Structures are given as C-alpha cells and as structure tokens.
C-alpha cells in the first residue's frame, strides 16, 4: 500500500499564487501527518480556499511544490488529486437533489465498481464508516444538511480518498450536528484517514484538531498545538497585531427613526416554511444596528426584502416615516437607502463596465448621474467626476475611472461600492458583510467610512458573519435564527462566544458551541 516511509500524508512547500492585484498565497508551507486532523485557520480572505484549490488541483501554483506520501506530484485537475488519494468536500454541497444517495455517490465513478451489487456493498460499508444512517435509495432532496455532508464525504471516500479536505464543514451545521461530525472524524482518524479541516471557528478547531497551521494575508504565520494554545492566542496569530479594531467610540444615536420594519414576513417558495416571520426592527439616525446569525437563517432575505428585491408577504417597511412597503427597489433607493450587497460581483458591480458606469448603477434616475427629463438623459461627465471623487475620498486604488470594474482587486471594488452607496446623502445604509473577502487595509478603510457616516447621522443596518466586526461597530445587536429575530445583545458587554451560542439557538453559554 502507501509507502510507510513518508511521515507526511501531504506536504506543501513554498506555495505562491498570484492573482491580478493580489498575492493570494505567498510562500506557504503546510505539513500534514498521516492519520491526523490538521486544521487550517485564517480569516476570510486569508488565502485558505486558494491553497486548498491548489492542493485539490483546481488551480496551479505559480511557485512551490506539493508532495503526497513523500512523492512530488503535480495536479493538473481534481481528477489527478483524486488519483493521488485526496478528496475535497466543498462548503457548498455539490449534490443533485433529484438523484438518490447511491446515484449521487456513483455519478462519475461508475468505472470503479460498476453500479451493481459490488458498488452497493461498498456504499453500505462507507455509510457505516461515516455514520450515515439512511437508505441509499432515498432521494438527496429529502436529506438534512448533516446527512448531505456525510454523502459528500462518502463520495470522496468512494473514489479512494485517504486524505479529505473539509472546507468550513461546520458553517452549515447546528451544534449537535457539529458534535456528531467530530465523533465521526475521530473514529475515521483511528481508521487511518487524514483530514485537512478548514475553519475560522477557533473553539471548534481546538476541539478537533491534532495540529494547527495559521494563515494570515496569504502567508503561513506558524503552527500551533491545540492542546496548549488558547483561542485568544490563535486569534492573535490569525489577525496579527496590526489589525485595526472595528470599535466605534462615542454613541451618536439620535431619536429620529430612520428605518422601521414591522411584522415583516416572507413566504417560502412553493409552500415551504416561511423564510422570514414577524420581523420588527427600528434603526435610528446615527445608529448601527447589527444583525448576527449563522448564514442561511434569513439575513440575506431580510436585506433583499427591505430593498424591495423580494416581495414581502406581509408587514411594513418605512423610511423616515414614509411607508415604502409597496415601493420598487429604485423608489426605495431614491428615498435614501444605500445598499452594499453581500456579493459585490453578483449584486454590486457590472464587471466589464468602466468604473464611472458602475457609479451610475442604482443612481440612474438621480443627479448627478441623471439630467432627468423625459428621456432620462445621463450626464456622463458628472458621473465620471463623481467617480473620481469616490476614488479619491475612499482610496480606491486604480489608474483611472475608465478601467473595467473587474480589473480591480476585491478590496478596491468594495471601496468603490461603499463609496457609491454613501453618495447622495442616504438616510439608511444596508451593509451586508461589508468587509468580506477584502484585505486588512481596505477593511480598516471601510470601517472608518462607516464610522464617519454614522457620526454624520446615517442609520446603518449591518449584517455580518464577522462577530468582532458586529460587536465593534454596532450600537445594538439583534440575533437572527430561522427567519426570526430571537434575541438582543448589547455590544458593550457581549462576547463573541455568547453571541455564537445565541446564533445557534443553544442557551447562552460558551460550552454549547462545541
């Protein structure tokens, strides 16, 4: 079987990967022993995913080498990686809902054991290994999230993987399921499987990992022993000492109501349970209201419903006393709502259009971009000048406003979006994950701009998965779970651990997270 001489199942050395405008991985070293759970920690945008894509053959490194079981390998595609015994379970599952469990597992791997009895026996055996307790003939659409994840793991094991990359496997799980997953991983570890566990949840990492490698800003900053390291020390390694704190200092909250949402409901698609129920919230001028929650609990839908991109089934939305419940997205924007969407490439920018054309998006009906009138003439000169203002004020690093948005790095794109949405004196800014996937410098800049706008009396509805950002910027925090606001938290006193517990529906103690 595998050469027992090599100590490491996987060894990456000197991996460097550059993308336009950013070095995603800079001389990264990573050594994973056989039969261990090795955690890879880092903030969003630190380069974890890029590194794993390189290991899984989805991208080729510009420099550096990969060794598997002591042998140098070069992966041109994921199938090369699979042949070498490396499998990957993506954060977003890649399963066909309308096929059965067995069909999903066999799809594309029919050549190994056929699709008959031998394949069925192997699947049953692997189901025992990962603790999947459902009939393989059941359709995947009827499975819960935890079982789908097990199906994904079986998929890679069936293809012969001995080393499994798990990309943020706990992001979609509730605490009990996390516990069960960890039990499974421990059992499989003693069977000789190796795991690369990507996460930024430090308590989980310390609970499951045998060793930890920390990545910061594309560089490997070191390894840690989970038995001795504290979460605080890990966090410091992850963010470095120079990380700006998101803290807002003095309260600027006024009594003027900017946004009032009452009884907001959003029906699920085709009879599914409602996505949002009974949402009530108020944001005042000069106030930042943070919404905390595990992703997929309705935050995206809440924001899009307030923006009018989804039609609420009942409830009202009022901006500065004016009812906007039935207004279109453009009317809501015109009334003074700025919107920093969670996915800037999908919802915030026109990638192939120049920056000045992107300045017009969402403002096509208003000065300075529009001259108004029956034809809705656009003022391209003014749009260009105002884009130059944004570029200067928000420190968007670009040679000119004529380059397409796609040519900018993520952080600069985001600064452009934030700058645009703060134009024209909005009453309310809805910011969804405003610093996701941006570099530390841009993050500090965006935080500073949000703080300044707040001081000028802007109301901000902030949705973020980054608990430090939420606690640091918010004046009040509401916790969202399964489409409702379940708890309030005071950012002055709450800890990330307490917030995390409330987000998962466990009671407010830190132990419940793991």
């Amino acid at each position, binding site marked *: 079987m595998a050469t027992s001489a090599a100590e490491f199942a996987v060894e990456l050395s000197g991996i460097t990967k550059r993308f*336009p*405008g*950013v070095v995603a991985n800079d001389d990264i070293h990573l050594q994973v022993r056989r039969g261990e759970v090795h955690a890879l920690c880092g903030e969003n945008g630190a380069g974890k995913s890029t590194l794993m894509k390189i290991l899984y053959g989805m991208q080729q490194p510009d420099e550096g080498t990969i060794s598997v079981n002591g042998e140098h390998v070069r992966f041109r595609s994921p199938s090369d990686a699979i042949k070498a015994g490396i499998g990957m379970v993506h954060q977003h599952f890649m399963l066909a809902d309308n096929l059965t469990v067995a069909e999903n597992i066999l799809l594309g791997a029919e050549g190994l054991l056929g699709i008959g009895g031998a394949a069925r026996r192997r699947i049953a055996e692997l189901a025992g290994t990962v603790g999947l307790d459902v009939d393989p003939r059941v359709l995947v659409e009827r499975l819960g999230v935890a079982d789908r994840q097990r199906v994904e793991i079986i998929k890679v094991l069936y293809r012969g993987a001995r080393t499994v990359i798990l990309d943020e496997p706990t992001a979609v799980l509730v605490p009990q399921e996390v516990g069960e997953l960890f039990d499974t991983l421990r059992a499989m570890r003693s069977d000789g499987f190796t795991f690369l566990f990507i996460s930024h949840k430090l308590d989980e990492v310390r609970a499951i990992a045998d060793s930890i490698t920390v990545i910061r800003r594309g560089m490997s900053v070191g390894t840690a022993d989970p038995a001795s390291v504290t979460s605080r020390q890990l966090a410091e390694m992850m963010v470095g000492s120079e990380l700006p704190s998101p803290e807002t200092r003095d309260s600027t909250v006024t009594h003027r109501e900017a946004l009032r949402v009452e009884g907001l409901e959003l029906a699920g698609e085709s009879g599914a349970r409602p996505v949002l129920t009974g949402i009530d919230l108020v944001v005042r001028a000069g106030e930042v209201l943070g919404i905390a929650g595990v992703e997929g609990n309705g935050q995206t839908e809440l924001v899009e419903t307030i*923006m009018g*991109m989804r039609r609420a089934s009942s409830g009202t939305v009022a901006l500065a006393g004016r009812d906007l419940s039935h207004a*279109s*997205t*453009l*009317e*809501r*924007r*015109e009334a003074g709502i700025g*919107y920093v*969407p969670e996915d800037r490439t*999908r*919802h*915030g*920018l*026109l*990638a*192939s*259009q120049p920056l000045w*054309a992107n300045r*017009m*998006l*969402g403002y*096509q*009906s208003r000065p300075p971009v*529009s001259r108004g009138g029956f*034809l*809705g*003439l*656009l003022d*391209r000169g003014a749009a260009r000048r105002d884009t130059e203002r944004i570029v200067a004020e928000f420190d968007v*690093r*670009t*040679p000119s406003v004529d*380059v*397409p948005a*796609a*040519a*900018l*790095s993520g952080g600069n794109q985001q600064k452009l979006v934030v700058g645009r949405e703060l134009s024209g004196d909005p009453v309310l800014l809805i910011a969804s994950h405003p610093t996701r996937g941006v570099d530390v410098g841009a993050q500090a800049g965006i935080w500073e701009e949000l703080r300044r706008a707040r001081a000028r009396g802007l109301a901000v509805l902030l949705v973020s998965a980054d608990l430090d950002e939420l606690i640091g910027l918010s004046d009040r925090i509401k916790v969202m779970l399964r489409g409702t606001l379940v708890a309030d938290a005071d950012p002055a006193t709450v800890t990330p651990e307490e917030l995390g517990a409330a987000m998962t529906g466990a009671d407010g103690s830190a132990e419940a997270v793991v």
Partner: protein
Amino acid sequence: MTRARTVLLPPALAIVFAALLCAVALLISGDSPVTALRVMVTQVGEGTTAVDIVNSGAIYYIAALAVAIGFQMKLFNIGIEGQYRLAACVAAIVGGALVLPPVVHTLVIIVVAAVVGAVWAGIAALLKAYRGVSEVISTIMLNFIATGLIAFLIRPDSFGVLQGNNISTAPIEPSGHFPGISFGSSGTLFGMVAVAVLLGLGYWFLLNRTRFGFELKASGESPTAATAGGVDARRMVIIALVLSGAVAGLVGLPELLGRDLAYTLTSPQGYGFTGIAVALLGRNHPLGIALGALLWAFLDKSALALDNVGVPREIVLIMQGSVVLSVVIAYEIVRRYELAAEQRRVAAQLRSAAAAEKVAS
C-alpha cells in the same frame, strides 16, 4: 490605441481568415481565388450593383438593429422574421385602403408597421415576463403563426387581389410611397435608407446617453446587479422586446414603399435571420452593424456575379458563415486577452505607485 486594437483587430482577422478559407475551398473545387476576388471587386462598379448593395444593406441594417436591441440584454428575438413580414403585410393592407395626403400617408404606413411589429413581439414579451416562457421558443412559434396569418390576410376573400397568378394586397397609392434618390442607370436608392441611418443614430443615442440604455446594458451584463440597482427586470424585458419588434416592423418597408408598393405572396423572406448574423458580425455596435450589413449585401451580390463567370455561388455562403463564426470567436479571444492584460496593467501601475510612495515617505 488599445481600444482601437480591441475593436478593429478581431473583425479584420475574421475576414482574412474567412477569405483564406474560401480561397482553399475554391482551389479544391478547381477555381481560381484570384479570378473570384477580381470578379467580386469589379462587379461593384457595374450596373446597379453599388446602389443595390446599399439598398440591401439598409434592410439588413434595420433587421440587425432590431436583433441588437434584444441582444443588449441577452434576449434572443428570433421572431424578427415573423414580425417584419406581418408588419409589412398589414401596413400594405392599411396603406392600400387609405387615401391620405402624401407625407401623412407614408407616415401612417410606417407607424402601422412599427405598431404591428411591436404587438407581435409584445406577445412573446408578455409570455416571457409573466410566464417565464423563453423568448427563443415563443418567437420561433410566432414566426410560423405569422406565416399562416399572412396567407389568410392576403387571400382574395380577405384583403388580397388576384394579379395574374400571384396574389397581392391592393397597391398603395403614390401618396403613400417613400420617394427614393435616382442615380439614373445606376439604380434608385431607397428613401428608407435615410430612415435606417436615423435609426442607427437613435440606437446609439438610446444606448449610450439615456437611462433606458444604461438599464438595458446593465440587465444584459448582470441581471442580479441590475435588480439590486433598482432596474425592474420584467419591465425591461417587455420594453426591450417591444422596441425590438417595432424596429423589426420597419424591415419590410424599404422595398414595400420604394419598389413593390404592395405585399405579395412572393415578397422577400429571410431578412430576419440575416439580421441575426449581421448583428453578431457588428457586435451590436451601430457602426459595426452598418459595416456588417454592407459586407453581407456585398457578398450577396457577389453570388450573382460569380455565377456569371462559372464560379460556384455557394462560395459566398461559405464566406458568410465562416466570417460570422470567426468574428464571434475572435472577439471572445481578444476580450479575454484584453481583460487579463488590463488586470495586469492595473496591478503593475499600483505596484509602482506604492513603491514611489514608499520612496517619498
């Protein structure tokens, strides 16, 4: 500099490539590419060819503009064919029935044609906006229905008149004609050529200077970003398809008002599909489409001239097909290359700027 390269290089490469392909085909079939080329070039100066090319080009231009309006937001209006034929037929019936003063008569016919085209495309628009029916499917089907409807409308029992063994609508009185510009023995330029030019200018203005054009392009580039930016997707689908149909309605008019003066069973067909090819060739740009339309018309005429000297006319079909295909591929390659180059350039400029900053501080 780079912009000119991005815009001009792909079509030039594509035409050269298509020409080479045709040369090879000619050599294989035993004909001389040089002769063929000479015949194609010299024919332009003979008889009415030059004027004919511009006249056909104008028709293709209008058809391609109609297609391009849809293309701007990734809508594929294959129904130009049905829209223009039905529009021309109804406009001919109305024009033949009315007695009006000169200019007004012509204007009424034009408006009727645009409205009929818009209504016919509007059916597909409503189906798409409210029922999610793909406009590709619905417009193809509407083409068939239009054919049947035309056959019904120009029956002698309906609005048709028997002319020898052909059926046609009642001829339009001279007051409804669109006067052309005569070049004597070199032919007569359709008056509608001017309308085609105006349409091109209007298209450019709409696209680049108005909110509607911006919303149209934004919807085409990223429907999700457009929605978040307050563009009403449903409204845009309806307006874009209806506008496309209205322009399509004018495609049959240059010949109807400038030459045929009645809609007949043998009125020309196929301009809608040519329009799709020309729009692709011109990359939806008003000038590009104009050049594409003229090239297409030139190749069409070449088929006749080549036939006269015994070179197979099918060579023109090869040329037309390969030029469209290679233009599409060439633009895509250049687009990807340019984007990557742009990203590298931005990164490089920022790096040197950052280095300069460090030195300065």
